[in-house]
């Protein structure tokens, strides 16, 4: 759900895609030969299902949505730090979270998928290469390009004096 939720932004639609993924996997169980790990096989079905869904919906990745704002507002990791952080640093953390998530959501699907599989799902480059059916060099390049795009958006924020004091 974490992966699909990053590809399909609407919560209800993402859940539909997840359900469809499990149904497809169940139907295709007899075709699973064990050449790859089960979870990479399942990830692959999930990504393809999400891609097909987005194509049939004729959607492009949103560049900035209400969802971004909600996500930024719901960014609660600062809760535990609130006692020791200043209001300025809490605000800076929220701005950083908003910027990173907005930049993520604006990434092309292939870059977004690659960095989600690496940073959130914790897959190795080899596993991502299996899931995305592309060479490891392409995985390396996609992850790097995704990081570059996000980093470009983030650098100005990290130069803020408030953040440097953190």
């Amino acid at each position, binding site marked *: *759900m*974490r992966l699909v*939720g*990053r590809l399909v932004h609407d*919560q*209800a639609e993402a*859940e539909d895609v*997840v*359900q469809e993924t*499990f*149904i497809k996997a*169940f*139907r*295709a*169980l*007899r075709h699973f030969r064990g050449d790859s790990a089960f979870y990479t096989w399942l990830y692959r079905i999930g990504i393809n299902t999400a891609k097909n869904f987005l194509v049939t919906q004729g959607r492009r990745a949103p560049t900035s949505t209400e969802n971004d704002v909600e*996500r930024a507002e719901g*960014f609660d*990791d600062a809760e535990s730090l609130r006692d020791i952080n200043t209001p300025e640093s809490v605000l800076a953390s929220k701005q*950083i*979270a908003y910027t*990173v*998530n907005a930049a*993520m959501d604006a990434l092309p699907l292939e870059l977004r998928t690659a*960095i*989600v599989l*690496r*940073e*959130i799902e914790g897959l*190795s*480059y080899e596993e991502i290469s299996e899931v995305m059916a592309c060479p*490891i060099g392409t995985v*390396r*390049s996609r*992850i*790097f390009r995704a*990081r*570059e795009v*996000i*980093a470009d958006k*983030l*650098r100005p924020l*990290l130069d803020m004096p408030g953040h440097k004091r953190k």
Partner: protein
Amino acid sequence: MDTHKKIREHISAFADGASPAADVDLALAALQGDDGRQTWALYHHIGDVLRVDPGPPLSPGFAASLAARLAAEPLPGKRVAASAAAAAAAAAAASTEPVPAGAAPVASA
């Protein structure tokens, strides 16, 4: 790709423990400089922020709904038997010869 960008790509792969052996020295050398260390910190910062957001929880009826859909699915193994039986039955039906009782495969799924 310019040199700085190439170096950052080495750092990106190195941060993931996925540097080719030939590039490890390049990444380590890059990390001796301020730019390299800043890039290293920035990439890790991005990962930290992404991992903090757990995403929305599944809706309450999700598991029950998925279970109901799965329960409605034929078992994968029986699907094979059913399709084989259907093919055999179709072949038998296409035949002009009468099929002896009990010889035609019957789908039990």
